[in-house]
């Protein structure tokens, strides 16, 4: 036993995670990291006890992956992309600007524990670089002058950021991954942008569904009212293929709906009403 006294909170998190992930170490560590924003020493020792593994193996795994951290992270995590595409478009200048603004280097946290700065090798959306991600919200085509604004917005609460005022939550143009017909409907605007038009069925109902084309907006309109937590079957209105993929929603586990982005890449969204699971794959 590495740990003699355990806080009940930690124990319940670890127990639930181990049960959920069938004793898979990395998934358990990810759960702890997500909850605390870092891996506390006690948590690693507890996982070692629970999984009956030597501590050095777990410490080795946790130190190997950059996704895990042993130091306490700030409330907001700013990730600046320094991949090849973002690098040539001025990614390092963005990092410098953030460093100057917050007085922290990449990998560090401000003294008031509000911000942590990290760099990423590539976030997979090179077409809209340089990218800065703050608490999961993507800011595209960032210039050094915009850094101050982004940080101020984060301080006031990124959730409250008005999409219409802030143009850098970007609109996407998508098409069917099977027949490549455009799914954009320019006649109906949602969030003041052309919407994405697909057909859906749930239960015995079949009808159209219009989604906001703004990445990060969850506004929808639909022919029939869709009860919460209903998993929809989505179809292309042109070729009538069911839009589904083997990717599972990171939040609820439903099979994600893929849409091709004009200019390359795929955006996946979760077909469950009310679930905010989505991912961008460029």
């Amino acid at each position, binding site marked *: 036993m590495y740990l003699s006294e355990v806080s009940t909170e930690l124990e319940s998190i670890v127990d639930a995670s181990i049960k959920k992930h069938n004793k898979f170490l990395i998934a358990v560590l990810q759960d702890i990291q997500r909850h605390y924003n870092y891996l506390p020493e006690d948590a*690693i020792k507890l996982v070692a006890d629970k999984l009956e593994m*030597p*501590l*050095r193996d777990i*410490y*080795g795994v946790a*130190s*190997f992956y950059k996704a895990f951290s042993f130091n306490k992270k700030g409330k907001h995590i700013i990730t600046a992309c320094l991949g090849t595409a973002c690098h040539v478009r001025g990614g390092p200048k963005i990092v410098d600007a953030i460093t100057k603004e917050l007085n922290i280097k990449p990998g560090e946290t401000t003294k008031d524990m509000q911000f942590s700065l990290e760099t990423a090798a590539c976030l997979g959306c090179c077409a809209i670089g340089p990218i800065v991600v703050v608490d999961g919200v993507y800011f595209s085509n960032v210039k050094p002058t915009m850094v101050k604004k982004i940080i101020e917005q984060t301080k006031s609460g990124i959730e409250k950021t008005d999409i219409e005022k802030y143009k850098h939550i970007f609109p996407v143009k998508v098409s069917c991954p099977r027949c490549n017909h455009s799914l954009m409907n320019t006649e109906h605007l949602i969030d003041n942008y052309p919407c994405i038009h697909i057909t859906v069925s749930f239960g015995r109902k079949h009808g159209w569904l219009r989604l906001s084309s703004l990445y990060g907006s969850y506004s929808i309109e639909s022919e029939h009212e869709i009860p919460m937590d209903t998993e929809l079957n989505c179809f292309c209105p042109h070729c009538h293929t069911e839009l589904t993929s083997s990717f599972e929603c990171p939040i609820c586990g439903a099979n994600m709906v893929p849409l091709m982005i004009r200019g390359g890449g795929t955006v996946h969204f979760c077909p469950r009403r009310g679930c905010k699971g989505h991912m961008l794959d460029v």
Partner: protein
Amino acid sequence: MKIKIDGISFDAPEYFTILDAARFLGLNIPTLCYHEGLSPGGNCRLCVVEIGKGDRTKLVTSCTYPVEEGLVVRTSSERVIKARKMTLELLIAQSPTSKVLQDLASKMGLKQVRFKPKWESCINCGLCVRMCEEQMKAKAIGFVNRGNKLEITTPFDMESEDCRKCGACMYICPVVTLRCHGAHPESVLCSGCYNSLQPTCTSNEDNYNCWMGLKNECGTCYNGESNENINENIK
């Protein structure tokens, strides 16, 4: 498993690695992170050999590569020697104070180290990690971080509860156990012991039997005789 090592046909048992087969035949492959009592690690890359035919040859670590039917191995080709020398240069640059490494350099005839010496006391060979896990059953130390930050240490850099302080990790370490203080600050090489070494080769060795295929070059297989005499003897 019918294999061919340095032109010698050999019927090797299935569980043999290339290194086992070579040692069985008396062919010398230098090793650093290999130990009979431990599982092979393949970390130090000194035991590389060339396998394959024609243009499609590749370098593999002989300590981890199991023999396979029809395998053709060369343990001392030009490419192998070059790769080993480069590896040893890197290892010595990491830790010039290791007597084991300096001796290997002397035997291989390493003339220069082109890298900036780091004077570290660990070459990440992983012998201590395997010793601690397999022989001592303690699993107290392990690899931490990765890439250029890789190091061997205990979790959180603190005294480990798993450690019994048996000292096996120190015993097996090729760097800290035997220190060499003769390393020249500029060339980083020592070769002090090498000059007073007795010849280690037997008199009836041939080209295949020689250390690294460096017959006559390493200097340990003849005593005071000139190179010409040696060549005549072979003829």
